[in-house]
């Protein structure tokens, strides 16, 4: 602030933007939102590990978008003459698989599927869990009883049976596998959301809005959801590794992604046949999963600090 005068004009524009973003007295809803986002970004930036996580995920997204540019081969382009080429072979950066397909290119294209799994699961299970948990927690009484019993049933159900049955019913395929995962993944979120709601429901700010005559629906969606969101988001990011792996596990059983889709889990699953002599076929996609999980995990831990409203108070 004090040495602003020394800067050249463009920097002043930047710093005035920064001033606009960091002001204590925003002038509009939009600015308020932006300052909020900027604060989040700043705390993310000040947390190197979370930043690494964030960058990994940005990279994942970029790779998914620019897959055709990054890939050196088509994802399902076979070359039986060059099968199981080790990493570093001519034209095969990470080696090739049992059909002579380029593993690097498959991983690059596979990022799209991984991204799809991540997005779809994140858009279903937590949302459903949030809905069930908050409604049960807020309404209490018999809705709570019924909803929690149902949650218990799904929780007590062998997850694999549930997922398998679901996939079996709808047919194999990555979309159905994702739905199946969501179906088995929502109960824990419902429990978290309910526990959170139980503590929020008696908060003074909820009493306050009740006293303004707000209905249950409005309170749940407008007041309780924003509060449950952070713990759910954190949990989702931390669960991501597990979710990608569950998809891979379904792939192992032949119920996940269908060939020749370069789904990472399916690639590992297929590559395990060659693990003893051609380690790279299974290990390369494994490392890809590891890096993405790491990214989510680091980001999740960072988000925990950033999103925690308690953290904001001090």
């Amino acid at each position, binding site marked *: 602030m004090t040495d602003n005068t020394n800067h050249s004009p463009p920097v002043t524009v930047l710093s005035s933007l920064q001033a606009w973003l960091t002001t204590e007295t925003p002038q509009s809803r939009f600015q308020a939102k932006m300052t909020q986002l900027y604060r989040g970004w700043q705390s993310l930036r000040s947390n190197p590990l979370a930043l690494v996580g964030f960058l990994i995920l940005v990279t994942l997204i970029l790779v998914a978008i620019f897959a055709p540019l990054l890939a050196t081969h088509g994802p399902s382009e076979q070359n039986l003459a060059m099968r199981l080429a080790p990493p570093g072979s001519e034209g095969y950066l990470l080696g090739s698989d049992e059909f002579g397909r380029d593993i690097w290119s498959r991983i690059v294209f596979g990022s799209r599927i991984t991204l799809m799994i991540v997005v779809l699961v994140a858009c279903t299970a937590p949302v459903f869990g949030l809905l069930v948990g908050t409604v049960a927690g807020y309404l209490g009484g018999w809705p709570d009883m019924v909803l929690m019993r*149902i949650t*218990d*049933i799904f929780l007590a159900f062998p997850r694999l*049976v549930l997922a398998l049955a679901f996939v079996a*019913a709808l047919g194999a395929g990555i979309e159905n596998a994702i739905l199946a995962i969501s179906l088995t993944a929502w109960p824990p979120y419902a429990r978290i959301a309910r526990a959170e709601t139980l503590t929020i429901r008696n908060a003074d700010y909820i009493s306050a809005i009740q006293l303004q005559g707000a209905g249950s629906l409005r309170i749940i969606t407008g007041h309780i959801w924003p509060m449950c969101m952070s713990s759910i988001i954190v949990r989702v990011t931390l669960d991501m590794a597990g979710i990608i792996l569950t998809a891979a596990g379904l792939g192992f059983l032949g119920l996940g992604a269908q060939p020749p889709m370069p789904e990472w889990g399916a690639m*590992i699953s297929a590559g395990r046949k060659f693990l003893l002599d051609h380690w790279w076929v299974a290990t390369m996609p494994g490392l890809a999963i590891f890096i993405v999980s*790491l990214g989510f995990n680091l980001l999740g831990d960072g988000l925990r600090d950033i999103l925690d409203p308690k953290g904001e108070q001090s």
Partner: protein
Amino acid sequence: MNNAAGTATQKRREGSSPLLKRLRGLTTVLLSIIATLVGLLFITFLIGRVMPIDPVLAIVGERASKEVYDAAYLSLGLDKPLIVQFGVFLQQVFTGDFGISRLTARPVSDDIIRVFPATLELASVATVFGVLFGVPMGVIAAVHQGKWQDQLIRLFGLFGYSMPIFWLGLMGLLIFYGILGWVGGPGRLDVFYDDLVPVITGMILVDSLIAGEIDIFWNAVSHIILPASLLGYYSLAYISRMTRSFMLEQLTQEYIITARVKGLSEHAVIWRHALGNVMIPLITVIALSYANLLEGSVLTEVIFAWPGLGQYLTTALLSADMNAVMGGTVVVGLIFIGLNLFSDFLYKVVDPRAR
């Protein structure tokens, strides 16, 4: 005026003894267990109906003629209305009879008694492993939050978390069994030890000790150690993560400062005071992860040729052996409910406030 209705319902119930109160509590618990179980069964039953797998075909095989097929269809009672079938099924289940598995040609209950101990053994050793290493690792990570210890533990846990178990399993086998020869191979025992100890619990580790067969015990240990530690790796990753976050929460509590004010060593503060409180939420976490392991892990079981519940259930499901699936589901459901009750009970033991 308005209150008249309210007054009537608000009459305080009086004169019930503590015994009655406990009885009522027990009934509630029982009712909720039964509700959950029936719900479980109903969903399982529905699954059996919506699966596009033909249970009859599963029995008679792909080359069966029409007549053979029809005979099997009738013998399964598939011609009766759904609700009747469910009723028959419920009736059987509550008498402990899950029917005959079509895949193994024996009573499902026998099958479960055979496969479950294998899973129980594996899951228990894995959980012990996960707790024994996971809790201290979580504590250390929390105490050194943000330091290299924390990061190292995180990476270690995460690696286990992100590599599919079939990768880890095969690598583990290759290295520890194939190359180093430190552990026994796939299977629960070396084959020529098979059937040498009388089956009592079905868990070889236990049975061999009962029979006093130390050789067999060590052989079983050498076989279980790898799959159990790999499975345990997963619970370790989860448990250490949760321990860390619970621990971080406890370490900011005032009573920790009180303990330090007293002049207690850091060791006592962390391992006695903080950990004591961490155990409370941790019990639920451990119970949940144990319950998950008890469902059986197909992937591990396949890689390690471990004849457990996970493989049994998966095979049954994929071949529409619905008796077996339902039996397995009920068992898993019961385990889950049982573990929940048990963790509630432990909760009360550990947390005086919950008593």
